[in-house]
């Protein structure tokens, strides 16, 4: 699983990468995940639904991330624009 974060002037940045089946690596992923949420980021897991339809699942806890997810993308929280 890879944790990516969108960044102005850069594109996405790799925050952490690891195998959720390996305890130490999972802990590292959980720590990085919590840091991003504490910073106010939104987290989404791109998924493929039945019929091939692509969509995203917004997650608020690491437990909500499907174990087989390849990546979690963090992006700044939405704000009402002008």
């Amino acid at each position, binding site marked *: 699983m890879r944790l990516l974060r*969108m960044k102005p002037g*850069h*594109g996405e940045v790799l925050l952490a990468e690891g195998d959720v089946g390996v305890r130490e690596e999972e802990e590292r992923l959980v720590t990085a995940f919590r840091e991003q949420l504490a910073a106010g980021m939104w987290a989404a897991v791109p998924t493929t639904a039945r019929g091939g339809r*692509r969509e*995203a699942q917004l997650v608020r806890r690491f437990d909500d991330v499907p174990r087989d997810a390849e990546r979690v*993308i963090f992006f700044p929280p939405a704000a009402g624009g002008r």
Partner: protein
Amino acid sequence: MALALGATAICILVLLWEVVLPKLEERLERRKACRARVPVQPGEGYDPGRERRAEQRARTLLRSCVNDEEWAMYRDLGFLRVWGGMGDGPERDRGTQGAPYAYLIYPHKPIVAYVPQTRRLLSEYCVEFPDETRPYGSARLPDSDDVLAKWMALTGDERRIIETANLHLPGRQVDPRQVRRDLWRLGRWEQERLRGPGRPSGSVPTP
């Protein structure tokens, strides 16, 4: 008579001076500010090369998240269409009477909701994803990251993003003529794809 006129003229001059002086001062200050050197932190200035590379990365990420049809739509037309999933449309007081509705996602512009059947424009949803850490001096995501953030938010939790956005009538920021032109282009584009040799894998037909 001459004395009265003279006194009046002096009064007018004094009053005019009071009105004009602040404006003159403000203009002078602005001129000074424009001429002043603004210190730029290393790595914070606008770098077109860096922005181009960022956009390239963002496009690659977007392409890996959406399906082939959506990617081709964005590449060819410059916007994405996402179908709405709420029963009676995105607005509680102005429903779509069950008609399917969709959103057009433009980079760094409001999301536009519309009814494809009639091409009626419903509303504009002004939403931004500002990164206040401003890693390179700007809070603005690359165009394709902005589109992807909107796409993820809409497909992941439509109600949340709609309730977060500022709702406006159509035409406030995105010219309705442009939207109608884009809808016409989208229709043509879809017809051409349907006529084309074989649909690419992963594409999803319009509901």
